[in-house]
């Protein structure tokens, strides 16, 4: 009898919970944002395991500007696009470079940041072009533009695709690979701001081609796209983007 | 060691009429239960001993102690003057001189009959394959099973398997044969063929220690009959004397039960 009571009570509590949740959703439109938090300082976890970084601040500011609510979740990069395609979350805010190939599958907002690819080598070493990496072991994060750039450059090197760029940097320091290619803010973060690697790394050069970050959404969500673009414009107009850049990259 | 060396050399200074096996006051415990209590026995070369007794009397344990398949807890066992418990003597060399036949045959199922018999001479005595196989075939002929040389043991009857097992033990040319209830696992109609082989062996003068329930065999073959009960040798002597005039009440009771 007791257990039946407890069960009913449990059901009641669950129902109540559901109702409250539903109520909140109706009150303010809420969107789930996915970020791969292995990409400092753009999006990464602080000591309290909360998502922080430039992209995170940016998407929150956009949400505030257009009156929507966002909840940022940490999602592994490998598969992050699959989740947005199947609707597990609405927006990818994860330093995603807008590429032609990606645009075939997803919609992108207007750009919110501009980067170049940067090549990191151990301190004391120097390379100045991608071609210099011939015969070397080059690491990067799997399915990132750094890897694509290396591949398209058709340099005869051994490409090592890591689950996150931090592991690649770790292997660079450990001597397993000769270079790491990634977005320049990330490269600068590891070379200049990460204490463990102080003096061990050298940001050797950046590519000429610029890449633009956009927020990624599933194709066909015109209203959400419109809203986000509106927000991006407002944030830029208010100069918040420069504030964030200063906060996270010290520029 | 090379093929020409004898399987083992007798200890120095042992006179020719010394017992080939000398068991001195051995004790064996399984947990707290004594399986052998202060057993002593001398066996002379060429002697044929049959051990009888109720199950659990320690007769199998005693037999297995002689080639150290059971380690005794106290006492001494000398085989051809060599202490089998001593670290100085290689038990593997001593065992070559002690052929053993088991109740359950224990043929190697993954080897053919010929391989079962030739394996030990081939690997231990380092005979050539031809020599080892010739020796094996001669022994198989002796036990009357040479036509089955190339089959696997699983295709043989129990009696045939046991005869192969005897041939396998003989292949090392031991001077002593130990039989541990060799016919107990056989169907009645197969007991005869195995006993025939054993009788032939006895007639050739092989030193034999045989644990068995076959009283007919004991009566005709044994030089000495040993009756064991409760881990001790209760009575021993000429088989005829023991069968016709048992002195110990345990032996009388035992004979009444089985005869």
């Amino acid at each position, binding site marked *: 009898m007791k257990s039946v009571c407890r069960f009913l009570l449990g059901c009641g509590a669950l129902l109540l919970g559901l109702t409250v949740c539903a109520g909140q959703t109706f009150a303010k439109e809420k969107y789930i944002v996915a970020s791969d938090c292995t990409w400092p300082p753009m999006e990464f976890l602080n000591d309290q395991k909360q998502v922080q970084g430039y992209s995170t601040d940016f998407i929150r500011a956009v949400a505030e500007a257009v009156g929507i609510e966002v909840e940022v979740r940490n999602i592994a990069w*490998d*598969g992050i*696009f*699959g989740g947005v*395609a199947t609707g597990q979350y609405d927006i990818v805010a994860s330093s995603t470079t807008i590429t032609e*190939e*990606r645009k075939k*599958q*997803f919609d992108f907002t207007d750009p919110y940041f501009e980067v170049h690819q940067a090549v990191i080598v151990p301190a004391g070493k120097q390379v100045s072009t991608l071609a210099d990496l011939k015969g070397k072991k080059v*690491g990067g994060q*799997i*399915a*990132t533009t750094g*890897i*694509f750039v290396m591949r398209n450059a058709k340099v005869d090197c051994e490409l*090592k*695709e*890591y*689950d996150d760029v931090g*592991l*690649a940097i*770790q*292997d660079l320091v*450990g*001597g*397993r690979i000769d270079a790491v290619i990634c977005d320049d803010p990330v490269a600068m973060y590891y070379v200049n701001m990460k204490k463990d690697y102080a003096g061990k790394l050298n940001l050797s050069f950046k590519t000429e081609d610029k890449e633009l970050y956009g927020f990624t959404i599933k194709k066909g969500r015109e209203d959400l796209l419109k809203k986000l673009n509106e927000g991006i414009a407002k944030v830029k107009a208010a100069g918040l983007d420069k504030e964030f850049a200063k906060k996270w990259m010290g520029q | 060691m090379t093929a020409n060396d004898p*399987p083992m050399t007798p200890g120095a200074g042992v006179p020719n009429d010394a017992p080939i096996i000398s068991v001195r006051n051995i004790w064996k415990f*399984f*947990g707290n239960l004594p399986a052998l209590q202060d057993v002593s026995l001398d066996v002379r070369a060429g002697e044929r001993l049959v051990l009888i007794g109720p199950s659990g009397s320690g007769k199998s344990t005693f037999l297995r102690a002689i*080639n150290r*398949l059971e380690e005794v807890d106290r006492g001494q066992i000398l085989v051809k003057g060599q202490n089998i418990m001593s670290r100085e003597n290689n038990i*593997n*060399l001593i*065992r*070559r001189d*002690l*052929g*053993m036949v*088991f109740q*359950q045959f*224990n*043929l*190697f*199922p*993954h*080897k053919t009959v010929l391989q079962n018999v030739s*394996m*030990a001479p081939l*690997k*231990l005595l380092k005979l050539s394959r031809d020599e080892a196989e010739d020796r094996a075939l001669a022994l198989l002929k002796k036990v009357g099973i040479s036509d089955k040389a190339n089959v*696997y*043991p*699983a*295709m043989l009857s129990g009696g045939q398997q046991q005869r192969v*097992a005897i041939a*396998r*033990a003989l292949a*090392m040319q031991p001077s002593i044969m130990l039989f541990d209830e060799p016919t107990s696992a056989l169907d009645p109609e197969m007991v005869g063929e195995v006993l025939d082989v054993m009788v032939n062996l006895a007639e050739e003068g092989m030193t034999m220690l045989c644990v068995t329930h076959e009283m007919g065999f004991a009566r005709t073959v044994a030089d000495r009959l040993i009756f064991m009960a409760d881990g001790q040798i209760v009575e021993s002597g000429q088989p005829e004397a023991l069968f016709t005039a048992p002195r110990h009440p345990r032996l009388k009771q035992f004979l009444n039960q089985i005869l």
Partner: protein
Amino acid sequence: MPEPDENHSKGNIVLVTDGASIPDPREWRLINAWSISLAGAICVLAGLFLFSPDPYERIVRYLPDGMLVTFKITIMSICFAVPLGLLTGLGRISRNRGINLIASTYVEIIRGIPLLVQLFYIYYALSRFVTVSGTTSAVIAISICYGAYMGEVFRAGISAIPKGQTEAARSLGFSRVQTMFLVVLPQAWRTILPPVGNECIAMLKDTALVSIMAVPDIMQRARSFVGTTYLYFETYTVVALVYLIITLLLSKAVSIMESRLNYYDGK
């Protein structure tokens, strides 16, 4: 004589990990779970390839070098794990308390740590002392892990051989080691082979984990392909079918080997 292990281990071999179900060598019917799975997998893969060459042809063309890496890691790991398993199994039944303790402790520790953690551990933790490549550390980690699992298989297989076999060999004058290698192991191998084959198949499947160490195996090639094309469903369909076909073929191979080892059954 008290033999605490005997009842527990006699004849029944515990499957420690999940490999694949090894087909029964006596199964002779044309239609069974194995043939349906294999025919199905091949038909689906061929069908996709023929009727929808884009993107399936691209995917299939992208994977082979990853397949080579997967095979390479699996075969190298088997070469180390099987002897290690044999040593461990022998150690576990050793009368030498020291050796027994070492083997048992090794099995205890390894079985309590997920393979993924072991892979990371060996790759990153050991890199403090020695730098080994991703493939090498993958082989080391997988061998150590599966050596422990196989050790249990070997131990059970060896314990399942009747004591009489050992006694017969010892009574002829064979040493402990000769008895093990000439009499016990050749027989135990038959009991051991299916579960060891099973472990090897489980191992092949577990090599998919090495993609986290930037080793370009089938799985990483697939992830890399997905990373450029975003064809999640299509790519992983192909990957699943490829793994399935490989493991089905391997399980059949183990089954055939098993039936070869049954030659002395007298049937």
